[in-house]
């Protein structure tokens, strides 16, 4: 029991001391996940917008597919990206396996459906309300998209945060394609997995605390933004 308490004390000492190794791992995690969310947003938002305002054959099936892909198991995504990037895979020549870039790719695959599906919902709802108004102002269907994106920006930010929460907390995909190499591809979640099995609980706990802090902050932001939108909705109906 005493040892247990000692591990916690050591963990917080690490955080408070701003341990260099800990900091490097946290920064790499943030870098990988932020880049992943950025690229996922670049792909996912236009995709979501196209699904929301577009009318083309197969749209319904595509919507179901994107929604279903939100639940992709990270380990399987890791495996597929691994196969693509491995030396004998189709993208093997790029020599990306076991690099942060590989980890970003895997997380983009995981996060894009989340951002696309949530963006589609947001834009579709706005569109239902304002489509005729926009049309009466002489706009084509696709010309309304920038207006809808801009006016839905708070809800869309929520979609980004949800994507980021998924990326930063995910371990299965990055450990397979990153390889958990010290100082190269070791991020918070993979370090926790490794250090726990090695018995180095202090570092694992310290990273766990940081990870929880980030996750809680992101979720708090999501619900805070959601609440603001709700309050406005309530005021509108009052």
């Amino acid at each position, binding site marked *: 029991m005493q040892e247990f308490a000692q591990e916690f004390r050591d963990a917080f000492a690490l955080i408070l001391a701003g341990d260099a190794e800990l900091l490097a791992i946290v920064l790499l995690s943030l870098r990988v996940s932020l880049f992943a969310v950025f690229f996922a947003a670049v792909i996912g938002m236009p995709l979501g917008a196209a699904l929301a305002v577009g009318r083309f054959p197969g749209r319904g099936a595509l919507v179901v597919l994107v929604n279903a892909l939100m639940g992709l198991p990270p380990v399987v995504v890791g495996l597929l990206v691994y196969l693509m990037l491995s030396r004998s895979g189709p993208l093997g020549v790029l020599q990306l396996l076991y690099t942060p870039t590989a980890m970003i790719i895997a997380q983009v695959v995981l996060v894009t459906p989340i951002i696309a599906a949530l963006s589609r919902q947001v834009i579709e709802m706005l569109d239902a309300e304002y489509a005729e108004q926009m049309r009466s102002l002489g706009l084509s269907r696709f010309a309304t998209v920038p207006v809808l994106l801009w*006016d839905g920006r708070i809800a869309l930010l929520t979609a980004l945060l949800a994507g980021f929460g998924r990326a930063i907390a995910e371990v299965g995909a990055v450990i397979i394609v990153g390889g958990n190499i010290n100082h190269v591809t070791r991020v918070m979640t993979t370090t926790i997995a490794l250090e726990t099995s090695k018995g180095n609980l202090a570092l694992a706990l310290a990273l766990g605390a940081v990870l929880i802090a980030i996750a809680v902050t992101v979720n708090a932001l999501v619900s805070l933004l959601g609440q603001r939108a709700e309050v406005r909705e309530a005021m509108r109906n009052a």
Partner: protein
Amino acid sequence: MSSVVSARGLNLTFQTSDGPVHALKNVNLEIEKGDFVSFIGPSGCGKTTFLRCIAALEQPTGGSLSVNGMTPDEARRNRAYGYVFQAAGLYPWRTIARNIKLPLEIMGYTREEQEDRVRKVLDLVDLAGFGGKYPWQLSGGMQQRASIARALAFDADILLMDEPFGALDEIVRDHLNEQLLALWARTGKTIGFVTHSIPEAVYLSTRIVVMSPRPGRITDVIESPLPRERPLGIRDSKAFIEVAHRVREGLRAGHSDD
């Protein structure tokens, strides 16, 4: 001189699971520049559908329809009309001024021009000083006026209004009707106005189009003998009551077959 709106033999049939529904059947109507035309009739008579056809929000299935000498969709893309919907349809997260600016932003007006126009149309609908408010801070009547201001902000010659005052109480409605007439006199726009209310139609219009359902069709077109300048008191005049009576008769005749 050609009409602003010209409908000849216009048909619109919706295919539903219960068979075809004739929303509009053989509708013929010319609307001249500067006219204030009201469409009145019971639910399902096609008055809103006809307005939506003019706005290219609905696609007729037969006959011909031109707006400013163009197809309705060309006219729409040329921003020939401003459309005021039944619900004010203001963005709750934009202020009144920014709601009015929305079409101007889209159309690429400069910032100064936008400010200038917002000020002018807010004056026009008697909402000066409310630009910084959010829609939920305004009453229903004020919201609807803001919505009218938005439709006036760009220089469309035609104003299409679909029961814009339907959800308002009678006192507010009277007031807004009076303001609408003043606005029409000042701007010289051509107005198409859908309503359920006989007094509203008679008070506002130079022509009243009486419609009837199943199939949606025009049963009477009444040229109003009232002068263009109309104080609210005109509603007690003999001429007003006679027109209202004729509208009521027209509506009753349209109903006799069901």
